[in-house]
Every structure is written in structure tokens, then in C-alpha cells.
């Protein structure tokens, strides 16, 4: 365990220059599987140490314990091809899995990685992985793709290393609070700014193809919904009605947004066509209706309403009709988010222990609380539906945290300022 911490600290120290978020694994109930990721055969001075990124990814997942390179010193040479693999020695080092590989640089700054995964006990190769980069800036992504495939082979769950997360930071800048909407790789590296303002930014929501992001800005003093393409910076002010414009949620086909508007008296839900802006009112209640989320089949909207007297989650058809109450546990339930697989709904539950993240099984309605509170909010599912990222109040301000949906693995993601409102982007379409 101590070794593990040391390895983690060293890894973070070496990466801290680039990273926007410091990520630490803070809990794992399951036994982490020992894995040795041997330095890949690659030339000097290349854009990334591919094996180091693969090892860091697997280690950070909490499900693997990557062997430190210092502990591989006994091998001379380190294996880079199958005939060099000496299973007995790796087994003696307590390793269960072994990864070796080659990185071939291509003209134009690209590269091709071929890696092999071995089962040390069964003494056989169980996977060959290929991933490519077309320019130097894609090398890290190439490494994450290798890690994703190894992760999937060993756990049965698709990896989320080669994905991105948007979040909002808030820092004092010459006496004023500045808000930034940032977009970074899932390991906190490669942060890029989408928007900045001295007025609050909130509720980022990725389009299903991951190419656009909708969010709320108070720039100009009032809430507005922006749709922006981070890759180009292009944006439009999509909605700026009188009153509240908030809580954008995309339909799975990306053609519509379900949003909260209050220009007709109070907060109700509307379905807005993204191309034409034609709109249809979905709820018409005297109560607060907000925080919509659309099921992956596009048919159901879950949302917060306090029509019963306290905030609870309701579901209704996206075509309208009766709303049905989904949650009854706890004093309040807020901010529902469908998992990409549609089986689970994450939400914010409030009871005597404060605000915590709950996971509701959509079929049975049974809720499990997976965070400790007391001020947790903003759940967002990873695209593999196996991890939820959310905001918690840490010792030095707001920070992000992740929890696997089985509750076994937890991470904290800290920023120098407050960081919150995470939105995990979907898988990039090939």
C-alpha cells in the first residue's frame, strides 16, 4: 500500500506541470490486480512515454496496482517481444499480468503502438492491442486507447481513459471571482479553455456526439444558454428569454434540448429544436420543474419537481402527458442524470446526513447512496456507465470526486481553485 502511494505521488509530481487536476485514488474495497507495464520499445525524445501513461491510467483506476519501474531493474534487457517474456520471474514479483510493446514513430509526428498483454499465471498472451496517432498531440490519446483495451480485457468493462471531462473552475482574480469552463482529458491533462467570465458559468452538457457543449452563462447579468463547439470555439447564444434559462439536456439524437425556462411565470420544462429553435412546453405546473435528463432511448424525461411540496424526481414521456413520481426516499431528491445504458439514474439525495449522490435502479426504483456528503451535487456518468463524477466540498474548497457504481473505487480530483459541475463527455465517434 505504501509503495502504491509512493508510486502515485511520484507519478503526480512528474505530471503536475501539465495537469489541471490532481487525481488521487482515495479508496478501493476490491483487491487491486498487480500488473507490470514494461517500458515500450520506443526512440528517445518522443512526445510521450507511452507505457508510463498506460501504467498511470491502470493504476489510477484503483483496480490495478502498476509495478514501479524501479522494481523492474532485475531484468536485463526488459522484454519487448514474446520470446523475452520470463513468466517465472514476473510471478515471483507477484505480478498477475504483464504488458510489453513497441512504439513506431511515423512521418509527420504520428505513431503506431503495438502492445501485448500476458496472463502470468496461465503463461500465455491474451491480447494484442494496436493504436495509432496521426500527430504528436495525439500520442497521449494513443496511450489511453491502449490502456482502455487492456482494462476492458481484464475487467470486462469498457475503459474511459481516452475520454474527456468538462468542468467549471472559480478563482479570485484581482479581487473578482473568475469562472472558466475547461475541457481536459480524463486524467486531468491537456486542459483547454472553452469559456471564461466574471459572471457565473454552470450546467455544461455535451451533445451526444461529443462535438458541442451547451452551458449556462450569466454574462450580461442574466442567465443564457450557449451552444459551443470547443474544437473551433464557435458558439451561439441559443436561448436568452426573460427570466431563467437553465439546465440544458440533449436528446440522444442531438436534435433537441430539454431546458428550463421561466418566462411564462415560473420554472417549467420546454423541448427546443436545436436547428429551428421551435419549442414545445413539456410541463405546466405552479411548482418548480427543472434539471431534466433524457433517457438513452429518447422517450423519457426525468426531472426535478417540487409539486408535492419538496423536490422529488418525476418521469414523463418526452411527448408530454402525466408525470409519475419516481423517488420517495429521503427528504429531497434533485438533479437526476440517466446513465448512458439507461439502467441507472444518478441523483442528489438529501436527508439527515446532508446531500449525497444516490443511484436509482430505474426498473425497481431502489436507491443506493454512494457518497458521504454533506454537500455533494452535480453527478455525471462516465460513458461506460460504470463511474459517476460529482462535486464535493473538500477541505480547501469545491473539488471533484468519482465513485464506481459498485461503490468500490473512489478518486478525488483537485484544482488550485474551486472546481465543480463536471460533465463527462461521451465516447468519441470513430
Amino acid at each position, binding site marked *: 500500500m505504501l509503495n502504491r502511494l509512493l508510486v502515485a505521488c511520484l507519478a503526480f509530481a512528474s505530471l503536475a506541470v501539465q495537469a489541471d487536476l490532481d487525481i488521487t485514488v482515495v479508496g478501493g474495497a476490491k483487491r487491486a490486480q498487480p500488473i507490470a507495464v514494461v517500458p515500450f520499445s520506443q526512440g528517445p525524445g518522443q512526445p510521450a512515454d507511452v507505457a508510463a501513461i498506460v501504467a498511470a491510467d491502470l493504476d489510477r483506476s484503483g483496480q490495478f496496482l502498476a509495478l514501479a519501474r524501479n522494481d523492474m531493474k532485475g531484468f536485463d534487457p526488459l522484454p519487448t517481444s514474446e520470446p523475452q517474456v520470463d513468466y517465472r520471474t514476473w510471478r515471483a514479483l507477484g505480478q498477475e499480468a504483464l504488458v510489453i510493446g513497441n512504439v513506431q514513430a511515423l512521418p509527420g509526428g504520428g505513431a503506431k503502438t503495438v502492445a501485448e498483454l500476458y496472463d502470468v499465471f496461465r503463461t500465455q498472451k491474451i491480447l494484442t492491442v494496436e493504436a495509432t496517432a496521426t500527430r504528436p498531440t495525439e500520442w497521449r490519446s494513443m496511450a489511453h486507447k491502449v490502456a482502455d483495451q487492456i482494462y476492458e480485457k481484464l475487467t470486462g468493462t469498457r475503459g474511459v481513459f481516452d475520454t474527456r471531462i468538462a468542468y467549471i473552475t472559480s478563482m479570485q482574480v484581482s479581487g473578482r471571482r473568475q469562472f472558466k469552463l475547461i475541457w481536459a482529458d480524463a486524467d486531468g491533462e491537456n486542459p483547454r479553455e472553452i469559456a471564461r467570465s466574471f459572471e*457565473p458559468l454552470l450546467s455544461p452538457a455535451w451533445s451526444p456526439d461529443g462535438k458541442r457543449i451547451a452551458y449556462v452563462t450569466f454574462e450580461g447579468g442574466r442567465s443564457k444558454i450557449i451552444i459551443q463547439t470547443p474544437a473551433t470555439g464557435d458558439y451561439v447564444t441559443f436561448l436568452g428569454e426573460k427570466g431563467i434559462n*437553465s439546465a440544458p439536456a440533449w436528446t440522444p439524437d442531438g436534435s433537441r434540448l430539454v431546458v428550463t425556462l421561466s418566462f411564462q411565470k415560473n420554472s417549467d420544462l420546454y423541448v427546443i429544436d436545436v436547428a429551428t429553435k421551435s419549442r414545445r412546453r413539456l410541463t405546466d405546473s405552479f411548482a418548480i420543474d427543472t434539471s431534466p435528463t433524457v433517457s438513452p432511448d429518447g422517450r423519457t424525461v426525468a426531472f426535478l419537481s417540487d409539486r408535492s411540496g419538496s423536490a422529488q424526481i418525476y418521469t414523463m414521456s418526452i411527448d408530454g402527458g402525466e408525470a409519475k413520481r419516481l423517488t420517495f426516499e429521503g427528504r429531497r431528491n*434533485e438533479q437526476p442524470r440517466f446513465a448512458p445504458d439507461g439502467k441507472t439514474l444518478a441523483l442528489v439525495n438529501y436527508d439527515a446526513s446532508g446531500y449525497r449522490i444516490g443511484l436509482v435502479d430505474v426498473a425497481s426504483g431502489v436507491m443506493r447512496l454512494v457518497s458521504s456528503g454533506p*454537500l455533494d451535487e452535480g453527478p455525471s456518468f462516465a460513458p461506460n456507465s460504470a463511474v459517476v463524477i460529482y462535486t464535493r466540498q473538500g477541505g480547501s474548497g469545491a473539488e471533484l470526486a468519482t465513485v464506481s457504481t459498485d461503490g468500490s473505487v473512489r478518486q478525488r480530483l483537485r484544482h488550485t481553485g474551486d472546481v465543480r459541475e463536471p460533465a463527462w463527455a461521451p465516447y468519441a465517434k470513430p
Partner: protein
Amino acid sequence: MLNNKWFACATLALAAVATGCSSTGDKNANGSAEAVKPTTPSQGSAAAAPSGKTSVTTPASTQSIVYFDFDSSDLKPESKDVVAAWAKYLTANPTAKAQLQGNTDERGTREYNLALGERRSAAVSSALQSAGVAASQLELTSNGEEKPVALGHDEASWSQNRRVEIVGQ
């Protein structure tokens, strides 16, 4: 102590915002200096200073904030003087306008709190209209939990943040 310091920063920031926004009219540009007096920490800083052009002047900043209980938009009895002062001013000056800026504490989700802040603005609006103020004189906005005046994570801070600020336009 820390809270007080934070509060002073927040007040300064708010005052700066309020001053920056007052670019259209006859607002007192020195309002921010008055607003950060440490002796009146629980009062808002964003209220407009009196213009002096009308017979009934804009209520003072100490008379411009309505506070609420947790997750409630019900007006409390102690708010009636604030509502009465603004009703008196707005009915005596039918061309005057006021913005009702709703705010919440940090608890709960940002999206719900945006809606709750607006509901608090609406509650103050209803009270003012019951006292004879025309709806056209009132503009309702909500900052949700985004613009706290106190930054602690306890009831002492939360109670200051659950508020509607009435700002003369």
C-alpha cells in the same frame, strides 16, 4: 474571523459589480465606499444610493434585503418594514423601477437554487404588488446560489445568503 474576512472580500466584489452596472443613470458612483462599512455586515451592498430627485427617496441599503428560511420563499414577519419602505417609494414614484434579485444558500443543486431564487423574487414581487406597486415597476431576476455574500459553510453564512436584494433602477 475567517468568515469576516471572506465576507469583506465578497462585499467588495459585489460592490464593484453593483458600481460597474450603474452606468446608465444618476447612481451614486461612491456607493461602494459606503457599502463595505464593517459595522453593517449583514446588509447588502448592491442597493442603489438615493438619487435625491424625488420626494420619497429610495430606501437605504439597510432597508433593501429580505431574508428567508432554508428552502422557503415565505416572507417572514420581520421583512414587512422592507416591503413597506419599497412599496411607499415605488407607489410615490410610479416611473421608478426596482429589480428583485433572488438568491439562495449553497445547499442543494445549482439548477434547483436558480429556480428557488426566482420564486423568492416572485414572493417579494407579490407582496409589493399587494401594497399597490405596479407589476411593470418590478423586474425579477435570480442568481440562484451563484452570488453569496458570505462564503462559510454554516448557518451563519447561509442565513445571509438566502435573500432577495431590492435594487432601485
